[in-house]
């Protein structure tokens, strides 16, 4: 593979777009700005309305998650993981539980694996729906698409609430299983939600996919090449929109993902429109997984009986575990020194690393497009800054 030196590439691109040095305008976009992605700041250099340089500035939501986690027990970090990517608490739980299970060699009972798949895919549904809603909001479709998305999100949050006790901060998974079993009638209710969800997707697609304004604003905007996507460590829907077939559910087959029949949608152009469509298609695949999981779920225990959750002390060693979260590859890296607290606790945040190529995608685009391109990266600041 040819090496892409970041600095060379950027100077070459900016030289092509910049006309005269003194006509440039430095603007700080954020940390408070009308876009709905939290306290993110971009230092932008503009030539007229074209972006010639863009530097993201982070840290406005740096909540010291890793430092705190290194001073508390393994279990006590579980509620903190909820607050990483606060749109998708359950997948965060899973990633952390999976890593600790790797670190300590814990087996998960079958029913718990099914519950994890069901909750994770529901999380993916509500995340992708809201992401598209927010994207439309940023494109100027104020209100309607986001309200449609949140209408569906609330229905899924009701399921989460009856299962975990909280709308957003679930704190549900444990090392070796899940905290509580499904409440009575939950599966029936979920089946109903899953059966009705395609109607919303159809409505959403009819409303948006062939909308002329949307096509004009998204097609050919913010193109990310396949090579740069791999080089920049991009994961998740964004990577697949650039045409790379890499879904950790298929690659690692963590949990019981090898039992389900689903496809991985792949984009062609790697532009904003592809990233938008990939999310719509992924929701349909998630529904497929959900239907199969709800059909096949078995009765049985939900916790590994051998695991002692209280006073948990894994052997000295380290483990890196990762899952396909709705944003991309969410990984946890843990080093244990045999004490009740992890010696090193690290979150590999997909949102942060997906922003690596933000500048490359935005160079030459207008400010309005920058916001749209940024919207399709789908970041959550809690995870970017941790």
């Amino acid at each position: 593979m040819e090496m892409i030196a970041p600095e060379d590439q950027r100077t070459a691109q900016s030289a092509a777009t910049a006309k005269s040095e003194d006509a440039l305008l430095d603007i700080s976009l954020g940390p408070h700005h009308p876009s709905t992605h939290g306290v993110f700041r971009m230092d932008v250099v503009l030539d007229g309305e074209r972006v010639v340089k863009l530097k993201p500035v982070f840290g406005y939501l740096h909540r010291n998650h890793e430092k705190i986690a290194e001073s508390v027990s393994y279990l006590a970090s579980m509620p903190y993981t909820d607050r990483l990517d606060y749109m998708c608490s359950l997948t965060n739980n899973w990633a952390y539980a999976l890593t600790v299970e790797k670190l300590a060699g814990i087996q998960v009972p079958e029913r718990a694996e099914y519950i994890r798949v069901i909750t994770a895919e529901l999380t993916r549904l509500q995340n992708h729906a809201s992401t598209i809603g927010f994207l439309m909001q940023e494109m100027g479709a104020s209100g309607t698409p986001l309200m449609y998305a949140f209408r569906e999100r609330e229905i899924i949050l009701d399921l989460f609430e009856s299962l975990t006790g909280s709308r957003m901060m679930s704190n549900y998974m444990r090392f070796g299983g899940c905290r509580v079993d499904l409440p009575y009638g939950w599966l029936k209710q979920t089946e109903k939600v899953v059966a009705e969800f395609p109607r919303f997707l159809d409505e959403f697609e009819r409303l948006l996919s062939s909308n002329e304004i949307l096509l004009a604003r998204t097609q050919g905007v913010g193109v990310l090449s396949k090579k740069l996507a791999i080089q920049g460590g991009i994961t998740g829907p964004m990577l697949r929109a650039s045409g790379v077939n890499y879904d950790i559910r298929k690659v690692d087959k963590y949990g019981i993902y090898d039992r389900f029949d689903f496809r991985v949608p792949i984009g062609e152009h790697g532009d904003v429109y592809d990233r938008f469509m990939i999310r719509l298609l992924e929701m349909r695949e998630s529904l497929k997984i959900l239907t199969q999981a709800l059909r096949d779920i078995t009765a049985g225990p939900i916790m590994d009986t051998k695991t002692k959750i209280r006073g948990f002390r894994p052997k000295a060693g380290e483990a890196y575990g990762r899952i396909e979260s709705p944003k991309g590859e969410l990984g946890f890296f843990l080093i244990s020194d045999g004490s009740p607290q992890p010696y090193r606790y690290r979150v590999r945040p997909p949102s942060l690393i997906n922003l690596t190529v933000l500048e490359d995608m935005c160079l030459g685009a207008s400010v309005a497009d920058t916001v749209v391109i940024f919207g399709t990266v789908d970041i959550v600041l809690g995870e970017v800054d941790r």
Partner: protein
Amino acid sequence: MNLEKIKSDIEAAVPGCNVQIVVNGSPSGQHSLLLERQHVFEIAKFLQDDSELHLDYCSNVTGVDWLDTETSEKVKVQRLVDGVEQEVEEIRKTRSPGYLEAVYHLYSMEKKHGPLVLRQRTENRTDQINLPSLTPIWRSAEFQEREIFDLYGIIFEGHPDLRRILMWDEFEDHPMRKDYIEPNDYEYEPTPHDAVLEKSMQH
């Protein structure tokens, strides 16, 4: 992944380098390769270009702070005590200097295998804290190496844009280090419990 084979491949491809396998004691079985800083760049390039490995995707880059450790062991020594040779127990302390470590997790998107874990270590924790940056090879390391520079203080040579990323520029400390002292701004709610009451008395 067969680490022994990768190790011999690396040593064949990059002459003169010394690669050690760091054994991981946990059931995860993710052992790692410890690289010398002189050859890190060539090795990384080899790992990326090699047709069999083709590790084109650097997933995770982490800093770890290992403090100076002091191990004490009891040794029985023969010694003259009051003219008579006796066996005396003596405590010997060995002090090993700490170091900062950068850990890289590599995968291959094309071959769909991984992870290969690389480590590189600094000489100590105070003045010799430079490591070669791998950002020119894997761009995904860019923000993560900046983060390690910010929170651990490792200086990555060859990084295109090494600035603080999470804390503000005027900040002087490296907060993720194990010996970082936090600002004393924690207000303890005065409760009847002894420990908390004592802490709140200090404020």
